[in-house]
């Protein structure tokens, strides 16, 4: 096919927007941790841009989008071999497709970091994202988008399964190794700067338009639809989270509202180009309530998913994948239009992804634990990771 300039412009800016989400994530997470861990937490998002960025060019793209087999791509595009600036994918330059997809490969492991903050060694974190990108992300991406066995079966517009379920589930799995932060449940660990988290939320939403509407890979009516649903679903989810929190806890918090927005962004991701705006509002309202409940449950069960990666990305991703099978009406047909089979396919995709993510993450965690260890010492945890892992402090006189 030939290059369409308008589509190129749209996917270029969308790619930039998705990379910008990493900064948003750094702030979103960074604001929620304590002062002594703020740089460590932000670095978890920043360093992924470097490491997975380079890795994607070297091998990641080839594994995810190379021809390969049903399970994984091949090695034909190592170092982007066989591609130059004149190559075209769909109506856009292949380089632009690679860049856009690369941003997705970057943000996914970074999401996991929210469960690890405050206690993982920096070197172990780096090892983790390298292994996880290659062993979990690249295959699942290949299954769903790269010609693998889920391609054309499970609907996943912009990564509900590929991005959010994998990361949410893996985050939870890593707690097997990392346990709780010191003082968790005894002391109240409060966010050190909620304004950072709010700013991060704004950046994430802004970037998410590129994430979802960019996934149309063209400046067309599907992009317009995905944009619209990415606008209204988080709005609705923020509203429903705020409402249940207000009723249930007595106050509508800013942190809760921001989390609701995020839950809405997550839930609409798989559905963005498949459902109407009104369905998106309903999906958003549901997500706000479900993710809220999941986060509250954590309080009861007492595991330390520090920044609620599972509660938001895991639960939100699963909810979104399933509701896509319910509400799909554009470019796909869901349960409500009389196609229960789609819901089955969604369910299948979710289950397989969950099982695969759990197993691989357990293996990865185990290996890193053996080689360099995962958790910092109690003393380092007390002092904070900024000083002990990075030799600096976030704030100075």
């Amino acid at each position, binding site marked *: 096919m030939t290059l369409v300039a308008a589509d190129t412009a749209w996917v270029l800016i969308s790619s930039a927007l998705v990379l910008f989400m990493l900064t948003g994530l750094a702030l979103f997470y960074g604001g929620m941790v304590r002062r002594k861990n703020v740089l460590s937490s932000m670095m978890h998002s920043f360093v992924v841009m470097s490491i997975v960025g380079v890795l994607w060019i070297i091998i990641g793209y080839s594994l995810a989008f190379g021809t390969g087999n049903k399970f994984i791509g091949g090695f034909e595009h190592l170092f982007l071999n066989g591609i130059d600036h004149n190559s075209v994918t769909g109506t856009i330059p292949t380089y632009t497709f690679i860049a856009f997809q690369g941003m997705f490969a970057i943000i996914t492991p970074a999401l996991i970091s929210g469960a690890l903050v405050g206690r993982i060694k920096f070197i172990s974190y780096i090892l983790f994202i390298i292994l996880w990108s290659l062993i979990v992300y690249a295959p699942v991406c290949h299954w769903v988008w790269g010609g693998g066995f889920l391609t054309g079966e499970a609907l996943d517009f912009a990564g509900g399964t590929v991005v959010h379920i994998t990361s949410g589930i893996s985050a939870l799995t890593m707690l097997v190794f990392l346990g709780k932060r010191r003082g968790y449940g005894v002391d*109240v660990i409060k966010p050190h700067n909620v304004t950072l988290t709010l700013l991060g939320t704004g950046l994430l939403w802004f970037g998410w338009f590129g994430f979802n509407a960019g996934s149309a890979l063209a400046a067309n009516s599907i992009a317009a639809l995905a944009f619209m649903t990415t606008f209204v679903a988080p709005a609705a989810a923020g509203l429903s989270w705020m409402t249940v*929190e207000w009723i249930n806890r007595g106050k509508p*918090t800013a942190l*809760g509202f921001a989390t609701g927005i995020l839950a809405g962004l997550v839930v609409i991701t798989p559905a963005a180009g498949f459902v109407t705006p009104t369905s998106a509002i309903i999906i958003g309202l549901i997500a706000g309530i479900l993710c809220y409940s999941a*986060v509250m449950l954590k*309080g009861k069960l007492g595991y330390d998913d520090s920044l*609620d990666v599972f509660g938001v990305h895991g639960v939100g991703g699963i909810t979104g994948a399933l509701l896509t099978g319910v509400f799909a009406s554009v470019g796909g047909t869901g349960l409500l239009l009389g196609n229960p089979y789609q819901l089955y396919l969604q369910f299948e995709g979710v289950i397989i992804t969950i099982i695969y993510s759990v197993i691989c993450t357990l293996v990865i965690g185990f290996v890193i634990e053996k080689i360099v260890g995962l958790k910092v010492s109690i003393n380092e945890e007390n002092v904070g990771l900024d000083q002990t892992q990075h030799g600096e402090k976030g704030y100075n006189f």
Partner: protein
Amino acid sequence: MKFIIAIIRPERLDAVKHELQKVEVNRLTVASVSGYGAQKGYLEVYRAFKHEVNLLEKIKLEIAVNDDFLQPTIEAIQKGAKSNEKGEIGDGKIFILPLEDVIRISTGEVGFTAI
């Protein structure tokens, strides 16, 4: 010599400084603190965690004075720190500690001329 520590409302800082200037006390140190006292606190909610806090933002003043300045200083703080004529809960407190010596770093002066 005395070392006066006063906890006041942030919004009264300027009024207190003003009153102090009137009685010619124009040296002091200010810090941002949180306080906890008769004034009722509030419930805080952070996602899964809910807990009672009563730490409210306050300003701490520290003023070293010679003995003859003690009374005027205290009165000036009281005047400036009161929310209104009758005073309200949370207007703060003044603590008076003994001060044994003062040294001015730049000149090396000690004692009451150094204050």
